[in-house]
Every structure is written in C-alpha cells, then in structure tokens.
C-alpha cells in the first residue's frame, strides 16, 4: 500500500521530464500509474472486508508511522481516485495539449493523486493530516495554475485559506482525539466504539473535526471557495473539485463515524448543515449561466447530501451515502469533462450562448446525456439506485425529520431540472454562433466522459455488480458490523413510486418554467441570495489586512524608544506577575550599616539621580563618573579589591572615550525634545527598578548555598598554586569562560575599527 501511495509522488517527480521527452503523449504514460493502482486495488477487493493493515515506521519517536489500512471505505475512495485519476490524466493530455506548463500541471496532478490516496489509506492520525494538507496545497497550486489571471489567484488563495484554516481546526481536533483515546492509530480509535462521547472533550473535538471536514467538503458557510475553484482547468475541476478532494471531508466523517457519530450533536450538525447545503447548492445551480458553475453548485449540493446522509448514523443512511458517493463521482466526472469539451471546442461555456452542439459533438452529447440520466435519477441510470437507497434512508428517519424529507424531495426535483438543463441546453435547439465552428474533441478527451457515463449505465442496470463488494463493504467499515445489500430495481408500484414519478413531473415542469423565465430569476434573486459567504470572505480578508496594518503601526512604529518601552514594560509586568504567585519572603534587614557605607550609598544614589536629570553633557558625564567611583568604593568596602581597581580603571577610560566621542557629536544639551509619554515612561522606569529591588530582596531572604565558593577557597592554593582566589578562578578554574570574554573584547575592538573604517570610506 505504501507503494500505491508513493508511486504517484514518484511519477510527479518524473512528470516534467516525461513531458519534455514525449510532449503531449506524456499523459498516456503517466496514466499507467493510476491504472496500475486501480487494477491492484481491484485485486484486493476480497480482502477489503474486514480490512488489512500495513505499517512502516516513519517517526517512531513521535508515534508517527506510515500505517495504511484498506477496508471497504478506503477501497471505494481509492478506486475512485485511481480510476477517475486514470481517465483525468488521459483527458488532461488532450485538454492542455501544447500548453507550455503541461509538465508542471502533471507534477501537481500526480502529487495530488498520491496525497489523496494517502488520505484515504492512512491509519495514522498525523499521517492522515499531512496528506490532507498536501491535498489542500495541491489544490491551491492547481486552482491557481493559470497564475497570470487575478481571478485564478484569488480563487486559489481563498481555497487555500478556507481549507487551510479548517485543516488547523482538524489538526487540533485529531490531536485531542488521539490524546483522549491514547492511540495515534485511527483503527484503534474507531474500533473501540463510541467511548469518546463520555469524554468531557467530546464537544470540542467534534466541533474541530467537523470544521475541518466542512471546510474541505464545502459545506455552508464555507462553500464559497468551491465555485471559485472553477477557475482551475477543467480536468482539475472534474477530479479535485467534484470526484475526489472535496469528498475527503465526507470520507473523514464516515471514517470517524464509529467514534464520534451517533450523538445528538452529530445528528443535528450533520443533518442540519448538510441539508441546508444540499438545498442551497441546487438553488444556486439553477441561477447560474456558466456551465461549470452550474456543475459546481450541484457538487456543493451533492456534498451536502452526503453529509446529510451520514448524520443519522444508521445503516440505510450509510448505504445510501456510499452509493450516492459512487454515483455522483461517475456522473459528475463525466459531466465536467463533457463541459470541458464544450468549452474547449466551442470556446465558451455560457449557457445563454450555447446551443445545437449535438450535431457537431455527438459523442460528447451522448456521454453528457447518459450522465444526466443518472443525475436526474431516471430509471436505468445508477442514480435511480442511489435514489432508491436515499429514499429508504429518509423513510427510516421519517418519524423525527419530516422537514428533511421535504428538503430532500425538493432537492431531487431541482436536481432533475438541472440535469435537464445540462443535457439539453448546450446541445439541442438552434445552432448558436459559438457552436457553429465547434467539432468533436479528440479521443483522449472522449474516453473519460464516455467511460464514466457508460459505467453509470451498466451499474444502473446491474446494480448488484457493485452492491455487495463496494457499497456493502464500505458500509460494513463505517457501521462496524456486517452489512449486506441486495438491490431490487423495481420494488413495487406503491406510493413511494408515485412520489418519484411526481418528482419527475414537477422537475420537468420546473425545467419548462426555467427555460421561459430563468433570466428573470437571475435578475431578481441573484442580488439577494448571492454569495453571502463569498462577500463575507472578502470582508474578512480586508479586515485582516487592516488589522495587520493597524497592529503593525502600533507595535512597529519604527521608534526605538517605543520598542524599548514595550520591552521593559513586558519584562516588568511578567516579573511582577510571577511575584504574585506563591508567598514571597523579603530580606528587610536595614540595621548594622557603618557610616561610611551609608555615605557611599548616598553619594552613588545622588550621582545616579543627577545623571538621570542632567540636561548638559558635562554634568551627565561627571555624574556617571561619580556613580562609577561609588560602585568601586562599594566593591572596596565589601572585600573585592580586584573589582574596585578594575572598576576604577574602567571608569577612567569610559570618561576618556565618552569625551572623545561626545566632542564629535552636535548639540551640548541633552534634552531630546518632542512629545513622549513622560509620565508613562517614568512609571515604566520606576516599575523596572522596583521589580529588581523586590527580586533581589527575595533572593537575599533565601538561604545561601556557599558550597562552590568554599570549594574554590579550599582548592585555590593546593590545586592551582594561587592565593588570589578571584584570579585563580579567572585564569584556571573557569579559564574557558575568560577565553570567551577576551574574544568578546577582541571582537568589539575589531567591530569598532570596522565601523570607523566603513565610515571613513563612505565619506571619502
């Protein structure tokens, strides 16, 4: 299985080279990879129930492994990915014939294929997430493939941001789930039943995971990126944005259903949002004129249907979802590719400008028509089967959810109408101007739609070919017990059958109505209904940019004193906050000082105050010198003659250097001028000083550990033959530190020389 996941990545690496060698025929060679995967997966069909596991360690220290599992659910997705992938690679070779970036396109496409296989086959939480994010990245690159168009760039970024933020939520949710469950293997987490629902973290986990799945699968209100993603080349729309990637969210919901599903929260969120998305998508589809956008909105609707069906967590629902998943992938893949053919050959995909293509593009028309039979749910299409199963699922729910039945029936009705539109409007009627010069697409572009449409028809007539091995197997994987399925095409002539017929009739009526007044609906409804979340996205993005600019102005004004003030304030506040934790003892022993000590302290303190308030340089430098001498006296008084001498010498040299530099700088006075928050800065300064005093008093109240100092005192003479312990520490015991310190002095000198040298050269 590792090979099945990695092969597309390897192929991706070779894709640009192949395109350079073989030109447009590279697609034929690359298609071998998914085709081989498809055949291999078919050969594993019998093993899919109960499922097999393969593990390869990856980052064992973090419990991240390349664990792969194959069960019915993975298999149905993997088959779709590799099967449709084969046709798409073929198709893309024709669609992008002669495109200068074809190599890059195949690179992204194969990378996506590998990532998507990784998502559905992973059994490790982290691995799954990595592949999940890879699909988002591949989608970003493919939507923005025509990167010279601003619309494509915007759509790509929107898709990435929405799915990417969802991905972050998902990561949090998955990590919490794995932590709560004590395992990083998905099979462990889902195999243990619904234990998680008693966990206090259940609701946060559920919400985070659902956010990830809903953004990926374009559920309301995160759906706006999917119609935008139609900016991608059509093979991408057919593959990523209808058949596979957008279903990743559905896959994960189904995968985690045994652990997370079955609760009232799960039921309400999935059924509610799914139902809303289902209805909304199909309504918007009726209002579009762009063929691809019509299909995109029905995809949104279909994704809503899938989520809706997973909500109740019962066997009929899961069966219906799995069947519908398959049906939708087949007919939508075919329709997208057919729409691509129309666009490619006629030069437009605007429904109001198309017509009569049936005569010039008969094969495309045939494929589209057959696919639409399936989409509309007419008999002999696979859609009929799915519809039967959905009907059964709805009836199982009927007692509690009358309203959902109505929503689903309405959706069916409108979907019928959309199918009629897609099948007839571009192809029948008067030959439009755009269609006049069109001719049939080349065979690689026909293979896909014809094959998928034909499969839909074959399975539609003999549904039991797939009922048991695919749908029942996938259902078994989701519900965790053996499911069987035997499909009877025509059950009975009862009220359900009548309802179906009524749906068809109403759909046909709606279609006739649409032909007459669609333009009017668009004019009146589009401004009201249109793109609430899409506009919301724009507003959020504008808000983010404004927020970024605003906070940049606040935090990075380019004023050094503000940066310093912020740094000092934060350090002081953090220190003060840490002081409030726990009881703190202070050393407040002010007795026993000698007069000379108090005098030295007083002089030092006075010098410091003068330095702070001095307005002339001479006074400030003098005060600084006095302060340094005071410090040297303190060292002297408390048994540190070495420090006192060093401090004294340094203070002398500081004054010399200060004098040398100050004499070159302008202005005698030190007042900075200009407004600055004086009182705030004085407060920050006072706070910093107070914090240091408090910390030191606290440290001094703690018992002192003299062991190290006493050891130095004992060892200096016997071991290092030195009587001045300070010097012994410097040049013997801790000589490495001293070495570092003289390197610093050396570096400072070199840097100063370099600065002066550079200055001299710039002036020269």
């Amino acid at each position, binding site marked *: 299985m590792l090979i099945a996941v990695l092969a597309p990545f390897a192929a991706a690496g070779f894709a640009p080279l192949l395109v350079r060698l073989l030109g447009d025929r590279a697609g034929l060679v690359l298609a071998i990879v998914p085709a081989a995967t498809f055949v291999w997966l078919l050969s594993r069909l019998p093993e899919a129930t109960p499922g097999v596991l393969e593990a390869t360690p990856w980052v064992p220290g973090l419990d991240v492994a390349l664990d792969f599992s194959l069960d019915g659910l993975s298999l149905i997705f993997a088959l779709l990915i590799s099967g449709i992938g084969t046709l798409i690679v073929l198709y893309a070779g024709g669609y992008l014939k002669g495109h200068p970036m074809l190599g890059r396109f195949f690179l992204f496409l194969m990378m996506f294929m590998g990532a998507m296989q990784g998502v559905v086959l992973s059994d490790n939480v982290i691995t799954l997430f990595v592949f999940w994010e890879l699909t988002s990245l591949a989608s970003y690159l493919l939507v923005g493939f025509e990167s010279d168009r601003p619309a494509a760039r915007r759509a790509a970024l929107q898709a990435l941001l929405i799915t990417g933020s969802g991905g972050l939520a998902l990561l949090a949710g998955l990590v919490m789930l794995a932590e709560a469950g004590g395992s990083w293997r998905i099979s462990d987490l889902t195999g243990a039943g619904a234990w998680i629902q008693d966990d206090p973290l259940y609701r946060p986990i559920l919400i985070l995971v659902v956010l990830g799945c809903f953004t990926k699968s374009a559920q309301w209100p995160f759906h706006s990126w999917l119609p935008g993603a139609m900016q991608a080349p059509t093979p991408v729309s057919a593959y990523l944005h209808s058949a596979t990637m957008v279903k990743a969210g559905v896959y994960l919901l189904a995968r985690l259903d045994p652990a997370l599903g079955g609760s009232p929260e799960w039921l309400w969120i999935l059924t509610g949002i799914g139902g809303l998305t289902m209805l909304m998508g199909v309504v918007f589809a009726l209002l579009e004129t762009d063929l691809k956008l019509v299909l995109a909105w029905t995809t949104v609707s279909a994704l809503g249907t899938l989520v809706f069906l997973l909500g109740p967590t019962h066997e009929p629902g899961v069966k219906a979802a799995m069947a519908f998943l398959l049906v939708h992938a087949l007919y939508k893949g075919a329709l997208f590719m057919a729409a691509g053919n129309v666009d490619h050959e006629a030069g437009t995909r605007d429904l109001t400008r198309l017509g009569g293509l049936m005569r010039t593009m008969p094969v495309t028309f045939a494929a589209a028509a057959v696919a639409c039979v399936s989409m509309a749910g007419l008999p002999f299409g696979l859609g009929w089967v799915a519809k039967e199963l959905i009907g059964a699922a709805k009836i199982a729910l009927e007692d509690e959810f009358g309203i959902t039945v109505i929503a689903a029936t309405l959706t069916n009705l409108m979907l019928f109408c959309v199918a009629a539109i897609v099948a007839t409007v571009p192809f029948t009627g008067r030959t439009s101007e755009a269609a006049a010069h069109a001719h049939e697409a080349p065979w690689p572009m026909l293979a896909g739609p014809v094959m998928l449409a034909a499969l839909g028809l074959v399975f539609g007539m003999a549904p039991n070919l797939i009922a048991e091995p695919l749908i029942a197997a996938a259902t078994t994987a989701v519900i965790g017990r053996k499911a069987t399925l035997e499909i009877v095409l025509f059950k009975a002539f009862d009220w359900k059958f009548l309802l179906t017929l009524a749906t068809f009739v109403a759909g046909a009526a709606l279609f006739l109505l649409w032909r007459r007044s669609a333009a009017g609906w668009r004019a009146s409804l589009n401004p009201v209904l249109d793109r609430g979340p899409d506009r919301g996205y724009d507003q959020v993005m504008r808000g983010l940019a404004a927020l*970024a600019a605003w906070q*940049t*102005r606040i935090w990075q004004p*380019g004023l*050094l*004193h503000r940066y*310093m003030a912020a740094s*000092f304030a934060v350090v002081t506040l953090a220190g003060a906050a840490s002081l409030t934790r726990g009881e703190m003892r202070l050393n407040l022993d002010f007795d026993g*000082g000698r007069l000379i*000590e108090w005098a030295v302290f007083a002089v*030092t303190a006075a010098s410091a*105050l003068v*330095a*702070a308030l001095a307005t002339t*340089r001479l006074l400030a430098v003098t005060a*600084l010198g006095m*302060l*340094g001498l005071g*410090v040297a006296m303190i*060292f002297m008084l*408390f*048994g*540190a*003659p*070495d*420090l006192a001498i060093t401090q004294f010498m*340094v203070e002398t040299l500081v004054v010399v*250097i*200060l004098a040398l*530099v*100050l004499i070159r*700088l302008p202005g005698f006075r*030190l007042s*900075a001028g*200009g407004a600055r928050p004086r009182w705030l*800065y004085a407060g*920050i300064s006072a706070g*910093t*000083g107070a*914090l*240091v*005093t408090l910390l*030191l*008093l606290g440290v*001094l109240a703690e018992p002192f550990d003299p062991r*190290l100092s006493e050891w*130095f*005192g*004992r060892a*200096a*003479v016997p071991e290092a033959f030195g*009587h*001045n*312990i300070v010097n012994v520490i*410097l040049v013997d015991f801790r000589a490495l*530190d001293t070495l570092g310190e003289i390197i610093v002095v050396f570096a*400072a*000198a070199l840097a*100063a020389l370099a600065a002066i040298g*550079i200055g001299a050269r710039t002036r020269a």
Partner: protein
Amino acid sequence: MEAPLALLIGLLTGVATWLMLSRNLIRLLLGFAVLGNAVNLLIFTAGRLTRDVPPIVPAGAQAIEGAFANPLPQALVLTAIVIGFGLLAFALVLAWQAYVRLGTIRTDEMREAEPPEEAKP
C-alpha cells in the same frame, strides 16, 4: 547591608531604564553604562556581602581562616566590567558613525530600516 544595597540597585536600574527610554542616543548610551553598573552590583550582592576580608589566601597558608568574601561573583563581575566597557566603547563608536552618516543623534529620526511612509498599509 544587603537590603539597602538592593534599594540602591533598584534606583540605578530605574535611572538606567529612564535614560534608555530617551530619544537622545547619548542618554541612551549613558543609561546603558548605568545599567551595566546596576547589574554588576546585583550579581555581587546576590552572592552575599562580607566586609573587609578579600578572597585572598594569606601567604604560607593553604586556606583562609574564617569568613571571606565570596570569590565567585567577583570573578564573574570582573569580566563583566571589562566586557561592558568594551561594549560601551563599541556602542559609542557606532553612535558617532551613525551621526556621521545620518546627521542626527535622535533615535526617532534614524529610520533607514523602517521609513515612516512604509507604516501605511
């Protein structure tokens, strides 16, 4: 005498902060020097104070009898004084060169890296 010294160190730190928050580069560097003194005293004091007995073993003896000043912070502070001085000298040279190139010693006018007009979105 540690507690009064702690007060003095707090005062020095506050003065150093105040000076470093100035727009005038010279004051900023003076603050830098004061902060160096404050930190040196802080380390010295945290190692406890002992009056009048430097950590020097009398000639002929193997160790000091009785209490003596803690040598470890002294060694740390000694190098810190020298390094602080090296750093201050370097910073002063830098300030002078900055003035030569930019014509100002006000930090709010030194905006080559972040020019004010770029602050707008």
